[in-house]
């Protein structure tokens, strides 16, 4: 492969301390290098904003429930159709696009790595099949352990090492990336149509609490030396008054890792509600943001909600049933034996709904009140808070007080007294945005070491060049230009190769999947544990030998091995 030289790039590269500098970027064999010989392909960035490829640290784009969202909603498929053109396949879908739709749209926005937020281990093969059809991003999968029977048994026995061993075996077997807890304990309760309200309640039969599951797995995660921390969807999502539960969950994680957070709380907008019912719901973003500010071991993502039609899909099955009872729209549910659950319903977030307006404000308040952008990442929990194509609007809202004020005019009467957004003057800068959309994700996910999220020599050459001159743009006033620029890169470069120009996809692409394999001592190898194997074959409906995902499902495979300390 010949090299690539990007000239005159206005670079913001937070992980390397570059806060805005015009420079050249040299690329060889897919990696960023010091220099490249003559004859390399040249892209003139013309002084435009150049960032590491975007990383989404929490999105739902592939797997059983995502596909079921498409399956049950032909109306959403019709709402976003494109024709086959050049190397691009036809695409369908607005809030839950087809795999190619997701891949092309993310690519046009400069996103080159994405983490699927929830994969049931039993159905991992499905997620990997869809990853293979998501050609222009590197993918990772959060792996669900919220209702895992063997894990809950280990938690009940306060056996951190056994819990770690089960996680290690499962992650390697299903080629997962990180531990995901969605409403921990609640998914098992949902097997009986019930739920847990907060972290101190007890799961029937297993006699463990969500707090115990979280505490043990946070410690197990560090014993396994996984790149990412435990990724938590707190209990009690979407319920007025849930913010205390959220802050209580943060308190379960000690500061265990110098390189990143010890606990990642996802889509915190949905977990920062005050009040006692839908009638008196109000924002509690302030105490939640304060709690984050006081705890360097916590990183969150916004879970911003944006107005319009979308689809909610989550492993929080009981929450989706409650939503169904609220909306009386169509409802799907999918419980997975011994592991987890999932639910899906379509929603419409309306400016005429005070509840929705409060939700919209909370996400922004969190991002503006968490002082350190490394601790609050930009995401919508795509598509739950809104489809990812709304990210440019969120960026503009965070950078422009004027834009926020305009939007505040349109909110339902009665919203203002329930939110603090109108009082927030802060306007984020370009560097903050670069942190919140790529560098922060790379650090939080622990993938800087494999060259993600920065543009220094040794980085993988995933680069986004946006049609925007920072020196000529005042984001506070010209927020429409900001939106336009972040919607479509001039160039997206993936693995050293230009893959999109002005939104047109240039190459078919090949997916790469990043997964983890913690190496454990022989006595902790669950593959050889007689009790584990006996219960597996007795209670699952697939044989243990048919469970692991074969290597051939990964077109390109990047296995991050670690030496577990068990």
């Amino acid at each position, binding site marked *: 492969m010949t090299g690539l030289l990007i000239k005159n790039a206005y670079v913001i590269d937070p992980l390397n301390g570059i806060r805005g500098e015009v420079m050249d970027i040299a690329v060889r064999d897919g990696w960023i290098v010091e220099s490249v010989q003559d004859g390399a392909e040249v892209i003139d960035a013309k002084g435009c904003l150049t960032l590491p490829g975007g990383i989404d640290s929490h999105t739902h784009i592939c797997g059983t429930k995502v596909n079921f969202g498409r399956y049950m*909603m032909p109306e959403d*498929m019709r709402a976003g159709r494109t024709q086959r*053109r050049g190397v691009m396949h036809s*695409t369908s*879908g607005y809030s839950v696009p087809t795999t190619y739709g997701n891949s092309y749209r993310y690519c046009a926005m400069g996103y080159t790595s994405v983490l699927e937020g929830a994969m049931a281990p039993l159905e991992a093969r*499905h997620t990997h099949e869809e990853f293979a059809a998501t050609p222009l991003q590197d993918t990772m999968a959060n792996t669900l352990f919220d209702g895992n029977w063997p894990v809950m048994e280990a938690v009940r026995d306060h056996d951190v090492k056994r819990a770690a061993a089960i996680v290690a075996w499962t992650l390697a077997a299903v080629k997962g990336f990180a531990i995901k807890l969605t409403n921990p304990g609640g998914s098992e309760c949902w097997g009986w149509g019930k739920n847990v309200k907060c972290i101190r309640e007890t799961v029937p039969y297993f006699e463990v609490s969500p707090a115990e599951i979280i505490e043990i797995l946070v410690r197990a995660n560090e014993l396994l030396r996984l790149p990412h921390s435990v990724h938590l969807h707190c209990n009690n999502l979407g319920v007025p008054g849930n913010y205390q539960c959220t802050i209580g969950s943060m308190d379960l994680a000690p500061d265990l890792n110098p390189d990143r957070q010890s606990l990642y709380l996802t889509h915190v907008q949905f977990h920062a509600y005050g009040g006692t019912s839908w009638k008196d719901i109000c924002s509690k973003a302030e105490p939640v943001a304060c709690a984050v500010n006081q705890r360097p071991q916590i990183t969150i993502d916004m879970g911003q909600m944006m107005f319009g039609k979308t689809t909610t899909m989550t492993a929080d099955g009981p929450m989706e049933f409650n939503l169904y009872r609220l909306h009386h729209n169509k409802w799907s549910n999918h419980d997975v034996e011994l592991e987890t659950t999932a639910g899906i319903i379509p929603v419409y977030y309306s400016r005429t709904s005070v509840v929705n307006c409060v939700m919209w404000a909370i996400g922004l308040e969190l991002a503006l009140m968490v002082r350190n952008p490394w601790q609050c990442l930009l995401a919508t929990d795509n598509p739950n808070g809104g489809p990812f194509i709304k990210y440019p609007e969120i960026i503009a809202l965070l950078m422009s007080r004027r834009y926020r004020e305009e939007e505040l005019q349109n909110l339902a009467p009665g919203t203002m007294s329930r939110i603090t957004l109108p009082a927030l003057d802060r306007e984020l800068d370009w560097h903050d945005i670069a942190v919140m959309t790529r560098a922060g994700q790379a650090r939080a996910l622990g993938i800087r070491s494999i060259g993600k999220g920065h543009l220094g020599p040794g980085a993988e050459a995933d680069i986004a060049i946006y049609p925007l001159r920072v020196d000529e743009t005042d984001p506070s006033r010209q927020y429409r230009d900001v939106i336009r620029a972040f919607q479509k890169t001039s160039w997206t470069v993936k693995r050293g190769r230009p893959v999109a120009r002005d939104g047109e996809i240039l190459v078919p692409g090949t997916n790469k999947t990043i997964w983890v394999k913690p190496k454990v001592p022989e006595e902790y190898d669950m593959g050889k544990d007689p009790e584990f194997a006996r219960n597996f074959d007795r209670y699952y409906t697939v044989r243990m030998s048919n469970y692991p995902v074969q290597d051939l499902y990964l077109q390109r495979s990047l296995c991050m091995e670690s030496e577990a300390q068990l």
Partner: protein
Amino acid sequence: MIVRDVICPFCACLCDDLDVHVEEGRVTGVDNACDLGSHKFMTDHRMEGPVRRTASGWQDIPLEEAIRETAELLQAAERPLLYGWSGTCGEAQSAGVHLAERVGGIIDATTSVCHGPSILAIQEVGHPGCTLGQVKNRADVVVYWGCNPQHAHPRHLSRYTTYTDGFFVKNAFKERRLILADIRGTDSTNVADEVVRLQPGGDYAVLGALRAIVRGKGDVVPPEVAGVSREQLFRIADLCKKARYGAFFFGMGLTQTAGKYKNIRNAIELVDELNRHTKWTLTPMRGHFNVYGFNEVCTWMTGYPYAVDFSRGMAFYNPGETTAVDILARKECDMCLVVASDPAAHFPAEAVEHLASIPVVQLDPFPNLTTAFARIQIPVAVSGIDAEGTAYRMDGVPLRLRKVLDRGYPDDVTILSEIARRIGEGGGA
């Protein structure tokens, strides 16, 4: 040699505990499988190589020529239909969708004549479902409606319901109540605790009556509904509400009888209603081993589970218009590629008559009724016996089919990719 934990490529139960005995390139025995599964492994009347119909009878042709002619037929066609797909692996289905997109054709699966109505109902009201292990480990009430699992899914009861103990159901045969709803007595109704013997076409009304009772509106229910007494309806509704965990399975007796998708909608809404009282899930008894796989693959690639028309360059879905039977009955289709199914055996006469008048190419390991209408047939490896690949169980659990022996046949993926290559572009990225 014994190959352990083999996945059975017959029905959508995808039993994965078969032991297959292989000697000298032949299956000599199968342990754990039902009769249907065993038969598929043991059967040996495959076609030897590609054949072409001529005025004087079948002519053996080289594979290369069969592929070339198929590619030419597909390219020449104005409105090609790519139909079947339920008896092959996901990788072949994926190649098929790419091929349909490439030639601007219509792709449809056997779904449209089996559980298509279930999908239409799901698209209206959703689907409260689960994996089968949830039922095995928890269910104390199981309903089978409009199906005869003892014959169509012979190990369903012994792997997932009545005859298998689960974690919270230590003695399943005693603890699980089995309700069978059918218009006739079958080997499945024979083992039920409660049989709902309804009149043909009465499913919608009976499900509606049950919904009314569960909602507390039982006073509107007349003394008899489609042959079922009011007393029995109340007894069943009570049993369902008092269940700790209930599981509702249904078959083509519900999807393809009067009311069609409205029946399924009523069943789903009954289950939704029961979820306000206790835990219930619903699962369609999908037939072919990978019919659900086609729906999954087609959905992530095109946005729709079946019946996708690419003639305008984008994916267009309108069952009733873009479904195989309708395209054929309207005589729009001018070429048909049949993969891993037998439309001539299952389609209405009108559709089959049109099939007889257009070029048909069939990829199938075995001769079947559609062979009689085919211009070309290319025998391929059997997915799950002499070819690997992915299949999705009726509940969505994906499994890797094993290859237990090599008979030297090319697999569907190879043939379809080769056809696509001939047409001028690779099937995929």
